[in-house]
Structure formats: C-alpha cells, structure tokens
C-alpha cells in the first residue's frame, strides 16, 4: 500500500512512493527502454490466488494469474510516469507496487469487510474548484467528471422541485391567496429540511413508502432503504445521486427492488482506516478501472459500471400496486418505468448499453482526475496515469433535459407522404424510433411525444377535415363524451375552441409488454381511435355553460369534445390534427396521465419501441393544386393538465420537423 500517494506530488518532489521499496520483492535496474518481464505473484490474505488480474498502470493490457497465483507481466518502460504493477481481486482493494527492472514481485491483497457499515457518512462531492475544496471531496481531483455531474439530472434528483411537488401533491410556488381556487392551504413539509410549512395542496400525495428516496435520495445514509424523501437533508438533498453513492455499489441484482433497496447493493466500508489522513474508515470505491491505487480511493474494479444492469437499478420500476386490476396485471405489478427492460429486449443489447450513448467519451482530459489538464503531476499513484483519449466517459448522463446534447433530435425520424384526392390533401406522417435502445419516450411516464400536423396553400392554413388527432392527454380545459351532450362547458368564453372527434374504435399497436405481446386486444391497449371532425369556435355561452359554436353540425357528428381556452390553443392540444405517443397511467378514480405513484393501471402504452414506427393519416381541404403539409414532432416532459395543476412551465422541445 502506497500511503504516500494520498498527497498531491509535484515533479520536483518526485512521485509519491518513488523511494519506497517494492513491497514483497526486489526488482533490478534497467538501463534502457526495452520491455522487461516481472514474475508477479498475487496473494489474498496471504494465499496465492488464481484468476487475479494484474496490469501495468497506464496501460490497457491485463494479465491473469495462474493456479499458483503467478503471472509473468511484460512491463513497458515507456509508459509515462511511475512504473507500477497493480493487482486486482474482486474482494480486495487494488494493490500496486513500483517496478524498475526484471525480477520478482509479490502483490499482497487483503479482503475488505463484506458487511455494509450504516455508520459510514457518504463523502461530499465538494466544490468544483481547485483550491476551494479538500482532498476528501471528490471534485478536488475529478474536476471534469464533477463539472459534468454537477449539471446533471442525477445531481438534482433529490431536490428536483417537480419531484417534491408530486411527492406531496403541493404547489410550493403558490401563495395562500393564489391557492384559493385550485387547492387547499394546508400543512406540508419543506423539501430539504423537512420543516413543517403551510403550502397549497393541489393533489393527492405519493405514498411515503421509501420507494422514491431509494433512487432519488440514495445518499441519506444509515439504513439504506425505505426513507421518506423528506428525510433527504444536507448533502443527501443537495447532491442526490452523487459520486460516493454510485461508487459504493459493490454489485447489482437486476430484478430486485429498485435503487439502494436491493438492485444496487451498496457496500460502505467497515474496516477501520489505516491512517487518520484517510478518515475513520478504510476508503472503498468501486470503479471502472483496474489500475487505481491511490489509497484515498481504496479502489476495487467492477465491470458493472460499464453495463446497463447498473443503470437499470434506478431506471426500471415495476412496483406491486394495490388496486391493480388482476385481470390486466396478474402479479399486481405495473410497468411504470421500464427503460432497462426495453433496452434488454431490444436490438442495442448488448452492443450499446446505456453508457455508450449517455456517457460519451471525453477525449480532452488526461485521465479521470484531469491529469495533465489541471494538475502538473508525474503520472503515478496520486493522480493516476494517462489514459487513451476517450477512455474517460462524461458524467453528464445527457437525456431530454440536456438541450445542447441534441439527444432528442437524434432519436426520431419524421417523414411525410402526401397525395391530393379531389379537394382533399391526404397526409401520412411516419414517426420512427431510430436512435435510442429504449422506447420513445421512456422513463418517467408523464413524458410524451406529440405530433402536430398542418397544411397550407401559399402560406394560408387549410382546414382539417379528418384523420387522426392528438388524444386527451394533449390537454384541454375539459372533455365531454357522448352520450353526454357535447356542448356544456361551464366557464367557457366566446372565442374559445371546441375540438370535436368521432370515436372509431381502438387503435391497435405493438407496444411494451402486454401492449405488444398478444395479451391485450386493441381495446385493452387503450388508445381510442379518434377521427377529426372539426375545430369549432364558441360564439355564445349561456349562464349555465351551454355553448354555441360556429359549426353546430359538427357537434352531431362527434362523440367527444374538448374545450380549449383561446389562450391555450397552441399548448392544449387534445383533438388537434396529429398524434401522440405515451404511456398513460390512471389512478383509481380513472384520472388519466397521473404521476406514477398514484397509478393503479397502465391504460395504454403506444410509445415506440426501438426501431418501431407508426404512420398516422390526416386530411385537409385544399384550395390549391400544390398544398404543403408540415409536421412537428415535440417532446413534453409532463402533460398539460399536470402543468396547469402544479404551475409548471410547459416547454415542448422540437425533435423533428418535416414538410412536403
């Protein structure tokens, strides 16, 4: 163990460990740059072990010990920095020793205590600034990784205001006066402190059964699983999914309870620290590299950091839900969040795990500790060794929220085909999931992909006369269905719209799980097949809310009507020409597109699986020979109705546009 490596060395001072004799053996001098062989024996707790991995730090090549724990390793003396051989074993911290010529070397590893330590306090990721942090903080050395993480959704997982508002059913931005019409001014708890406050309760809260915190706030500490999300205070609240949590995951158990409740097996060190410089416990980090021997890390190699199963720990949620219809969900589990399973069943498995798209290579850093960029160190124990450009992967986990990443623009293909049939322009819009290895959209089921289709002659919009529409969750102030009358919308005003559609049955499609494997018929798949009838303008409203529209004949042709306020026509899209792709969850009362913690059913799921496409048809009355159709495919993080309820900003992001 090279304890001297804890401190940051300088070229003048010489690399840490430079003068230390190699533990367990002597190696001779070498005078040139010729590769030389070192006979390495690896022991664990004093016993030679077969199958241990030996590497020369700073190289990709790896060797494996034989039955006697031995292997001959060819050392490349041209590798910049200290020449160090490192041994790795799954149950022991890596051990390294310097070599300077051919000879023999014993690398003695010691097993770490396999018991998780509830007394351990997760390390602080720290400030991202050299000089503003201490070596005990991750960002002190890992500048680039820290910088990426600090802007990521992982960092804000525990303090995400949307999560907290849904968790308590509260709109924290609304004052008592503003709450009067939409909710109840009642007791709530302040996110980040847990303090009792008064807030505007606008919806039913999520059950505080710990499921949320197991992924959103895994760094709460103590007993790992089952915390109330409001237990997240301090670092656990501020930093959410952070360095010392992910790198404490010793193994993964796909299929177990999400997060730190089972899927991600966290192992916090129980061994006492060998030095007060290293804190109270012997450092222990599970990482993606074998040649890390800085004693401040206590590094142990784990391949799962490269694999989708690791990400699946918090990107796969199929909870058992009380009240789920056993005829639809025999085991009581609702497929709420199935990104990992979608990938696992898809064509990107195994070639493109999550990391290959969401953690792209970073070529402009010397290594994960910014060796050569920020730190003028000799490559060695303290700062690590140079890695081939791109070996370091970004810790940004770019997704739909990372606008600059362009991930949404890469995900889908949108193509239009048109034909003119008499005075009708027929537009067929095909949307294909061409990029992701998972469904589109995926993850949090409030997410939607919305297609809007229009047509024009010389820039003048054409009237739609038929075809598919955006479903209810596209947003409307109210909905009415036959056999109820379609003209009663209390609160409506002249100038508002009533979008009208005819029910044609059910859309059949191939979606995830029972929505595509034959278990559900089209009706059970739950996507109504609506045919556009018209978008009528309200011209009169009675005191009891009966509306008169400019095309009353459409009311008779329609089976469903959506009232849209004049101010909302570009955001509340239900009934508009277009289509939509979403997983729709419903609560026990039948309310659709609810947050997953309230759901008792997945009523539909027509999201596009990897490679899948869907063609919708739309018809417009054309007044010219060369009409132009245009379509926009957008992503919405949450539905219009929830945005209205909680006061969230609805900011659709364009994924693709097409015209023809």
């Amino acid at each position: 163990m090279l304890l001297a490596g804890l401190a940051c060395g300088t070229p003048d001072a010489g690399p840490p460990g430079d003068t230390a004799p190699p533990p367990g053996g002597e190696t001779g001098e070498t005078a040139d740059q010729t590769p030389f062989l070192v006979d390495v024996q690896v022991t664990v707790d004093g016993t030679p072990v077969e199958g241990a991995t030996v590497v020369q730090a700073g190289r990709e090549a790896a060797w494996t010990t034989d039955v006697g724990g031995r292997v001959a390793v060819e050392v490349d003396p041209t590798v910049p920095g200290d020449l160090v051989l490192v041994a790795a074993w799954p149950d022991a911290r890596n051990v390294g020793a310097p070599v300077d010529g051919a000879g023999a070397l014993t690398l003695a590893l010691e097993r770490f205590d396999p018991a998780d330590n509830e007394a351990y306090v997760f390390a602080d990721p720290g400030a991202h600034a050299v000089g503003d942090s201490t070596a005990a903080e991750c960002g002190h050395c890992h500048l680039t990784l820290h910088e990426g993480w600090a802007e990521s959704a992982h960092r804000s997982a525990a303090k995400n205001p949307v999560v907290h508002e849904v968790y308590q059913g509260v709109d924290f931005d609304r004052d008592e006066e503003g709450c009067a019409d939409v909710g109840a001014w009642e007791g709530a708890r302040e996110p980040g402190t847990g303090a009792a406050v008064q807030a505007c309760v606008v919806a039913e809260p999520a059950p505080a059964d710990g499921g949320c915190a197991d992924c959103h706030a895994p760094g709460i500490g103590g007993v790992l699983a089952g915390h109330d999300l409001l237990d997240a205070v301090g670092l656990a609240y501020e930093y959410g999914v952070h360095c010392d949590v992910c790198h404490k995951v010793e193994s993964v158990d796909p299929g177990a309870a999400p997060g730190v409740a089972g899927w991600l097996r966290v192992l916090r060190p129980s061994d006492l620290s060998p030095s007060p410089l290293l804190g109270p416990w012997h450092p222990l980090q599970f990482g993606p590299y074998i040649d890390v021997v800085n004693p401040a890390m206590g590094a142990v190699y784990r391949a799962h950091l490269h694999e989708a199963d690791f990400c699946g720990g918090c990107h796969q949620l199929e909870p058992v839900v009380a009240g789920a219809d056993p005829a639809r969900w025999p085991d009581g589990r609702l497929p709420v969040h199935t990104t990992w399973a979608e990938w696992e069943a898809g064509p990107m498995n195994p070639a493109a795990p999550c990391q290959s798209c969401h953690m792209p290579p970073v070529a402009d850093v010397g290594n994960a500790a910014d060796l050569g960029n920020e730190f003028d160190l000799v490559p060695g124990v303290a700062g690590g060794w140079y890695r081939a450009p791109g070996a370091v992967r970004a810790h940004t986990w770019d997704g739909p929220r990372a606008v600059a990443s362009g991930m949404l623009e890469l995900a889908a293909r949108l193509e239009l085909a048109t034909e003119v049939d008499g005075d009708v322009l027929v537009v067929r819009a095909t949307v294909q999931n061409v990029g992701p290895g998972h469904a589109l959209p995926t993850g949090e089921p409030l997410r939607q992909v919305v297609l809007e289709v229009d047509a024009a002659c010389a820039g003048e919009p054409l009237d739609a006369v038929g075809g598919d529409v955006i479903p209810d969750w596209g947003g409307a102030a109210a909905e009415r269905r036959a056999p109820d009358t379609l003209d009663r919308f209390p609160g409506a005003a002249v100038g508002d719209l009533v979008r009208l559609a005819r029910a044609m049955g059910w859309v059949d499609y191939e979606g995830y799980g029972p929505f595509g494997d034959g278990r559900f018929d089209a009706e059970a798949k739950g996507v109504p097949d609506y045919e556009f009838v018209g978008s009528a303008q309200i011209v009169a409203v009675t005191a009891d809310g009966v509306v008169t529209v400019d095309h009353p004949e459409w009311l008779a042709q329609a089976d469903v009507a959506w009232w849209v306020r004049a101010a909302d026509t570009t955001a509340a899209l239900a009934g508009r020409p277009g289509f939509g792709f979403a997983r729709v969850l419903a609560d026990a009362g039948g309310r659709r597109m609810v947050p997953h913690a309230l759901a008792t059913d997945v009523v539909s799921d027509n999201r596009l699986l990897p490679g899948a496409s869907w063609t919708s048809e739309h018809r417009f009355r054309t007044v010219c020979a060369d009409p132009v159709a245009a379509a926009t495919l957008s992503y919405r993080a949450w539905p219009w109705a929830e945005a209205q309820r909680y006061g969230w900003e609805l900011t659709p992001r364009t994924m693709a546009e097409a015209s023809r």
Partner: protein
Amino acid sequence: MMFWAWACVADESSERGLPEVPAAEEARARPEMPFPPDAVDLDPEPGRVAYALGAQAAVHLVGDEEIVGYGYDGMAPGPTLRATVGDVLTLDLYNTLEVATTVHWHGMEVPAAMDGVELVQTPIPAGGAFTYTFPVRHAGTFWMHPHVDTDRQVDLGLYGVVVVDSPDEPPADDDVVLVFDAWDEAESGDGAADDHTPPDPRTVTWTVNGALDPRWSLSAGAAVRARLLNASNTSYLALRWPGVRRLGTDQGLWGAPGVVDDLVLAPGDRAEVEVLAGGGPLDVVTAPWSAAGGAAWGEPRRLFTVEGGLDTAPPLAMVFSGAGPPPDPGRTDLLYVFQGGAPDTDWLINGEAWPEVTVPTVALGAELVVELRNLSATEHPFHVHGNRLAVVSVDGIAPDTLQVEDTVNVGIRSVVRLLMVPSEPGRWLAHCHLLSHEQGGMIAAIDVE
C-alpha cells in the same frame, strides 16, 4: 501495425511535446520524403491505361523496426496508378501472398463486379490473378486496397493511391501523393485491449509515404499539388499546415478553395492541397484526435517538415466551379444511425450488424437524400462504395462550398446529410472505415436497380 512505438516517450520533456534534438543532428537523422513511384502504364494506346501489380509479402522499415507485412509490388504505399477522366483503366493483379485478396477501388464509380468485395468477387487465391477493368469517370484522389480480411491486409501495407486527372485542370510542377499510416495502433500480445478501445493518438507512430518524420525539400519556385490519404486503420489526423490552400477532397476539387488550419482526415479520407515553395522550413503536425471524442488531450506531433526554398512560387491556376452545396430537399431517403461501443460486441447501423442487415432497394439515377446520425461512443468515417456523396449539411449547417465525398466522418451525436445519385446497378456496401468497426459488423448495403 502491432509493434511497440518508436515514438513512445521516454521522459517527461519529450512526452509533453516534440523531441528536442539539436538541429544539425536532427538534419542528419531525418530521412528525405520518399514518394511512391508511378506505376508503369503498359498500354500505349490513348484512352487506355493498363497496369500490373503484385500483392506481395514485404518488409517495411519503419524507423529502426523491420515490419513483415504486405505491399503492392512490395511497397507501402504501392505504386501510384494514374489515369485521366475518360480512360479505361485496367489492372492485372497477381497475388503472390499466401492468402486470398482483392482490390477495392475506394471512391471510384466502377461497375459492381469490379468493386472487389466478396459479394461480387471470389477473392483472388494465393498464386492467382485477376484483371480489373473499368472506365474512369471522375477526377480525384482515390485509393486501392483489399476488401477481404480488410482490417489485417490494409494494416500490413496493402494500399496505394489512384490519381485521376481532369483535362480541365492545369498540371502542377509536381503532383505528389502523401500517404499517412499509423503503425502501432493497438497493443499486442497477452492481455491486449479490446479493439473497441481507440488507439492513443499520443503514442501512435505516423509515417508519411512510409517514412518517419521526413523532410520534404521543395524545388525552387515549385507549385505542388499534394494528394493526401489517411490509410490507417483506426487513427485520425488533425493536420495543421498553415499557409497551404485546400483544393479538394475525396472526389476532386471543391467548389472553391479553402484553407488548412485543422484538417481532420479520418481513416480512408483524402484531401488535395496546394504547396508552394518559398519561406522557411515548416513543420506539419497533427494535433491529437481520437475516434473516441475528437480533439484530444496532448501536444501536436510532427509528421514531416516542408523545406520550401527561397523562391516564391505562383499559385496553381486552378479553376473552381464556384458551386455551393446542394439545397436540402427536406426529406430523407436513406437513414443510417450508428450505435454501439461496448467491448466485445458488434458495431451497429440501424440496430443491425452485418450480415444480418436490411437491404433497401433504390432506383438507378434517382436523387437520394442520405442522413447519417451517430449515437455511438466513437466517431465513424462512413464510406459508401461506388457512389459520390455531396455534403448538404453537417449538424444543420451547410458547407461553404460544394464538397463531394465518398468517406464522410460523423462525429459523436452529429448529423450529416448528403445527396447521392446511384450511377451503377448492383449491391453496394456502405460501412465505417474504422476497419475494426467494419470487421465488427458496421456495414450496411444498398441494392441499386
């Protein structure tokens, strides 16, 4: 090429930059720039060029290392084939290797039967021969290499340049080829890394026309047209060559000349530049660039030095069309999405790996809009056989001038749109020219009818 790097750094000073060698000693140690000879035209008839080459075992001297490899007529690069637009080019290839081989005419519009891929040709067996013959349609800088066991055979040195002149272009004082190859792209032996790990641009050894760090002495007053080829398997060049005009790309002249500040040449990629005598010696360097992430950490490394003499040369009297990029038709006919990156797995296009791929059929002569999207963990130089690709846009931005390519690098999370008009019927491959990726399944195909 699998051997330990000549240029691996031995100490910190050299690791941070170029070797510090006294000038006089440096001058003695550095070789003169070699140029591959022109192959001998065996057909005196106008309108025809005929060549004969042998695919042979060869020993390449790279610095002090002797590398046992292959070469056309024993050379890497092999002799340069020259032709003029309108010629019929014939090559009799004699295979004296112990393995089968073929010739693929990279970038040339040839009949499908001449494309050198196993779809259309039984590889030429050891001791066998094959005659390739086709009309030469377009001017440009092309190259020839095997398309069987490609990763290994190209790596061992089987490649050469094909220069096609246009009668409309004025001859240069010198018209030369500069072929770059990287010779230590991966570790070898026990414990070698998975080939999904891109080579380290800080340690690969680059040769120019087979020479390490040569000096190129221009003739006094010379105006030189230099045709550049990156023949490496997986290594990128990011050339910094101030003061030269960029004349063209894979498929001949651009619509207008450009400059060479950071010229990224992906494996398989070509460029044409104008080099003028005059001024003092100039080091041409490559900045670190990796398939895994592009511009990389590290210092630029010298590839060669141009010694330009004292007499300034006038620029070449090239006539550029002035054409801009084609407008974007707003549709996509062929979409290729690149995926992958996990060790020991396939590289994918549209979720598929060769040979289990969907093959679309397109019409001969139809204008196709091709879109490339890269969602994988590395860049990919995408090469379409037997077709020319006009660049419409890169990440939504149209180029300044007409650029016609056959090998287009696509950065990570980048989108490239191209126009293509198939001119020959048959089945054509389209693949990543990082040859380990090609071997790893990153191949698509198009049927042209």
